[in-house]
């Protein structure tokens, strides 16, 4: 068989063989393989895209978090400040109130002490007057019982009274 001359039998066999191989492989091998490769490529591309999107989302969320945190910090400071002010004012109010109350109580006490004192003085005055009358009465009765003493008294009194 010549090297350079095509041989009919071989051509026919190769043609049929190759054609059948091609048709079988096309249907049962290349189609599923190529489809699967395409599907895998697509899924990888999609996954990468989704990952990229997620990354962006995360960075966006992080920025948001930072903002929210800053706001929260600010708010906290505000609240603390307000609380401090409230505390201060509350204490001051209480202090003022207490001072006023105590002042009022002291005033009342002073008033009542004054009243008591006045009443006591008046009582004392009244008793002293009564005692004086009693004493005078007693002295007079004793003085007048004795004619000598009576006379003395009259004398003394008469001595005291200066005649003008």
């Amino acid at each position, binding site marked *: *068989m010549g*090297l*350079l*001359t*095509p*041989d*009919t*039998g*071989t*051509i*026919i*066999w*190769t*043609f049929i*063989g*190759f054609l*059948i*191989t*091609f048709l*079988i*492989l*096309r249907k*049962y*091998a*290349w*189609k*599923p*393989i*190529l*489809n*699967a*490769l395409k*599907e*895998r490529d697509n*899924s990888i591309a999609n996954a990468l895209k989704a990952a990229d999107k997620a990354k962006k989302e995360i960075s966006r969320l992080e920025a948001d978090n930072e903002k929210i945190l800053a706001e929260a910090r600010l708010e906290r400071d505000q609240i603390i400040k307000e609380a401090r002010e409230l505390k201060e004012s509350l204490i001051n109010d209480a202090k003022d109130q207490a001072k006023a109350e105590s002042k009022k109580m002291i005033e009342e006490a002073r008033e009542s002490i004054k009243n008591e004192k006045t009443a006591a003085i008046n009582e004392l005055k009244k008793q002293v007057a009564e005692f004086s009358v009693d004493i005078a009465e007693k002295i007079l009765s004793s003085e007048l019982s004795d004619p000598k003493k009576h006379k003395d008294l009259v004398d003394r009194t008469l001595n005291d009274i200066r005649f003008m």
Partner: protein
Amino acid sequence: MMRFFLCCMTLLFMSVLFLKAEEKHTPSGEATHQIEKKKFEPGSFMFDHIGDAYEWHIMTVGHKHISIPLPVILYSKTKGLSIFMSGRFHHGHNSYKGYKLEMSGENKGKITDEEGNLPLDLSITKNVASLLFSIGLILWIFLAMAKPYKRNALKPPRGIQSFLEPIVVFIRDEVAIPSIGKKKYEVFMPYLLTVFFFILFNNVLGLIPVPPGGANLTGNISVTFVLALFTFIITTIRGNRNYWKHIFNTPGVPVWLKIPVPLMPLVETIGIFTKPFVLMVRLFANITAGHIIALGFLSLIYIFAEMSTGLAYGVSIVSIVFLIFMTFLELLVAFIQAFVFTFLSALYFGMATEEHH
């Protein structure tokens, strides 16, 4: 892999069975063989190996040819269909059913009938047997490879998939898409993949020196002719308006080149045929050349052996080193030629489907 190994083993056992059968047929031939001591002819040694044959020659021990006989299928108008094993010819010594194997002359190596006419020869020759084996191998490997993809496309490749998938992706991304374009490449992918792996498998099988390897299939002009024919048919069928316009009314060329003498259309028309012709010759020449060089190094041993035995031992070392080197080179060539054929086919398809711009 285990199954593949088993397949090979069965084939080997079958060949041994055939051998046994054949040896019974050859007692008469031996006597005549032993008288003449044939001189070694490197030319016929090489061409016998790279050419086709009706039997699969494995080796010659002494004067006994050990080969696997293959079925001969002949059809002639006068005799009709006749099928018999090639062992009936006894290496050209006998004729059978009126057919004989020509050992010399114009039809050397072919089967002729009594009048010297050539019947339609559909024999399973060495190349055809190798072709059938490689087809079986390719089908088995790729159908097995496709199975996991059908089950779950998103699973990462494993086993044979991980070896073949990069090649498939390479053909798609580096051959088909750049040459044909992203829009149209899909139609051509099955053909490109089939032709690539067909050539690759047969190239590599050709490098294996023992059957079922060793046939020079992709170095056979008939086989490369058929492959180129497929590329030609697909290019012609898929050719769009723009492609044919480019051939018959080439744009951007002076009018006097087209009318009155249609020089450009003629050149372009010849071009349609030269492209696949080049594909055919390139593959054939590269693979055949590789086989010839490898056989040449082997022949050196025998040539020197005829001068002196010692010299042959010396030469054999050098020859085998070169042979191993050549085999590695041929392994590279096997890939390159499969790639080149596929790539050029893709380029032609790209030209045929290119849109006007």
